[in-house]
């Protein structure tokens, strides 16, 4: 056979024998062998190369044998690279060259492969602070290609910080660093080794490629895909995206650069090409409620004394009896709606944005001696940083109207110069919005989509740069930036106006 001949041309020699086994006692186990210029011993870490992958897999030889039909096999216990289990790692930090030992029960732990799949020896040092593990010296760490101290359980799909006693029938002591020096000299310098291998593979040596194609690593791929690519389809896409990027980024056989780029850094170009816009809106002089305090009769201030204008009242806690806690059960929105209908809803503006609802209630109590329930309006990206707003529900309509009228005619000045502005709220309640700009559908599919949308759970994704939607998304981003710029300018201007006026306040 052509295959056998070609394989023979690669140097191979069995080393120390270990024992025999198998049903007919015809399987010979070995402890070491010499292959393609490198000495391998049991429990060495090796590279396993798969056609098409830019990075080889790394595993530990845990069994070496020759079958009766002279085929040589090795059983390999796998190491996971962080990117292969990134889903389970989450956002935990990993070393640059950290690996995770496979452990536990399940698919993906270890595989049997033909010996010829080995692509080279690898120096993996265990840096676990485990008592069973001889700690590596500094030189060993320097020379190490990879390190590991954690394991990944393929059964439960979890990261384990401690190495189990036995993994795949092998005791832990064989998996950790071995007593005595690591034969780092045995592992030739990485790139030269790989170049050899790559040279061989690239050469029109069809048979070698054929030997590799014996789907030996199909096991591993299937298992790892079972482990990673489950529920969320999005993860799948993203993994593919990341792996593709890694492939694209790495040159063939370039193993010196082992930096795992989990987040390829694409910058958004449109952001840099935005021209400064001088889009200043000219606001109409239309005011929503342009009520000026009329020159009408002056209400005497609550204190009743004319002499002391600068009496400052501290917020007094409302007496507990008034606080009807047992009505808090109703969700705010319902109460707002009923209040709106009854006319007891008031919108307060020009609060300090950092006030809380309870403080607003205290202020109202203190100013009007009326209890109410208040809720600060949550700040969004669009809200002004200069003001806070709140909705207040009074007990009775007359109270609400009285409060608003009073706030209009006489100023209630809060600390740092903020006169409170109140108005009967014209709240709009979010109903079923049908107009949202920006999501496009093709007409035929529209009816389909609506039904699906209601049940949809995972409909989100990151857009890739080679699609049409990416360009469209960029246009939206551009528009967003423009709007943001305009908003920022407006806020600046408003801030200036406010500051100017506040500065003219006689008292602070």
């Amino acid at each position, binding site marked *: 056979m052509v295959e056998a001949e070609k394989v023979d041309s690669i140097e191979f020699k069995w080393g120390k024998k270990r024992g025999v086994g198998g049903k007919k006692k015809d399987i010979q186990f070995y402890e070491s062998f010499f292959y393609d210029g490198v000495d391998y011993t049991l429990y060495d870490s090796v590279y396993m190369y798969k056609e098409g992958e830019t990075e080889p897999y790394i595993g530990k030889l845990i069994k070496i044998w020759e079958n009766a039909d002279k085929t040589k096999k090795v059983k390999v216990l796998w190491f996971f690279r962080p990117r292969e289990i990134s889903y389970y790692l*989450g956002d935990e930090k990993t070393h640059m060259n950290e690996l995770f030992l496979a452990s536990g029960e399940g698919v993906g732990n270890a595989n049997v492969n033909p010996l010829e799949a080995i692509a080279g020896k690898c120096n993996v040092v265990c840096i676990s602070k485990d008592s069973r593990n001889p700690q590596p010296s500094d030189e060993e760490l320097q020379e190490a290609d990879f390190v590991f101290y954690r394991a990944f359980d393929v059964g439960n799909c979890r990261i384990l910080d401690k190495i189990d006693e036995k993994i795949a029938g092998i005791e832990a002591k064989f998996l950790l660093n071995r007593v005595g020096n690591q034969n780092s000299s045995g592992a030739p310098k990485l790139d030269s080794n790989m170049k050899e291998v790559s040279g061989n593979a690239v050469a029109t040596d069809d048979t070698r490629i054929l030997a590799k194609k014996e789907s030996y690593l199909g096991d591993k791929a299937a298992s790892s895909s079972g482990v990673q690519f489950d529920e969320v389809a999005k*993860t799948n896409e993203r993994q593919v995206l990341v792996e593709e990027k890694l492939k694209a980024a790495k040159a063939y056989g370039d193993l010196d650069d082992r930096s795992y780029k989990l987040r390829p850094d694409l910058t958004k170009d449109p952001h840099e090409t935005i021209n400064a816009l001088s889009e200043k809106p000219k606001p109409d002089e239309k005011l929503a409620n342009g009520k000026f305090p009329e020159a009408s009769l002056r209400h005497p201030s609550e204190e009743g004394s004319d002499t002391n204008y600068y009496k400052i009242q501290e917020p007094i806690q409302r007496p507990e009896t008034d606080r009807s806690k047992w009505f808090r059960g109703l969700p705010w929105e319902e109460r707002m709606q009923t209040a709106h209908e009854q006319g007891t809803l008031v919108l307060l503006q020009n609060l300090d944005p950092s006030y809380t609802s309870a403080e607003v209630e205290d202020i109202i109590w203190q100013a009007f001696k009326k209890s109410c329930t208040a809720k600060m309006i949550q700040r969004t990206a669009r809200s002004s940083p200069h003001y806070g707003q709140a909705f207040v529900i009074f007990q009775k309509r007359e109270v609400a109207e009285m409060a608003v009228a009073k706030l209009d005619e006489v100023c209630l000045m809060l600390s740092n110069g903020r006169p*409170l502005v109140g108005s009967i709220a014209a709240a*709009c309640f979010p109903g079923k919005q049908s107009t*949202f700009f920006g999501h496009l559908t093709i007409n035929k599919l529209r009816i389909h989509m609506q039904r699906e949308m209601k049940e949809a759970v995972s409909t989100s*994704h990151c857009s890739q740069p080679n699609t049409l939607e990416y360009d469209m998304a960029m246009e*939206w981003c551009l*528009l967003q930036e423009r709007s943001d710029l305009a908003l920022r300018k407006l806020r600046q201007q*408003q801030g200036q106006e406010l500051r100017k006026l506040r500065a003219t306040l006689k008292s602070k």
Partner: protein
Amino acid sequence: MDMTLVEKANYDGMCFWTEKLGMSNLFRFWMYVYRLSVPSYMDSTSTAETDYAVFLEKVKRTVYIDNLSPQVTESVVRTALGQFGTVKNVQFIPNYTGPKNIPCCALVEMECPRQAKAVVLEITQFPFMMSGMPRPVRAFRAEEEMFDDRPIKPGRRIQCRWVDRKDPDFEVASKIKHLVRKHAAEDLFLLQQQLAQEEKLAKQQDETLKANYKKFSIIDNVVSDGTAPGLAKLYNMKVFDA
């Protein structure tokens, strides 16, 4: 001219407050004052501080998401952001003021600040789309004022007073009120302008998309129903098999 609490404990102040509040309330007031001035010994203020600290911690790990379509539901958000970590809570911010057709926003609480940072980083680097294309969502770190159920910042005192006509500040105060209203109107105007622009862009993209779709479907049809291969044979050309 601010009178601090301590000054207020003057005799005349006492008289005034007694008259205003009555003895029982005055007593309550003093209890409140006492609590404020001796923070380290009282339980209530220390719980307020711990509450606030807990709240601040929560803020650190929450993400604010904007530009959401109204069709996005909580489960969509959960699944979408679930890939960055564990989503603890999703709260949509309702829109009670303002026009009806602005995009929605939500606060998503993650498990730790690092996850929140990862979410924001990812969404700002790549256009992330939820429940529709192609408008991407925006994400920021959350801020305290975005939460409406926040606890009071411990140690803050608000003072307020009535300012009436006789007060020299009255004019300025009413000018400020006027300004506040004007700013609110300006905001609304700007918002409406931006909505108009968004609508324009959406329409534009829609037309482009439809045109492209038509083009591709025509090409598709022509190839599939045999016209293209037939013509190709006629003119002795090869059909481009893409």
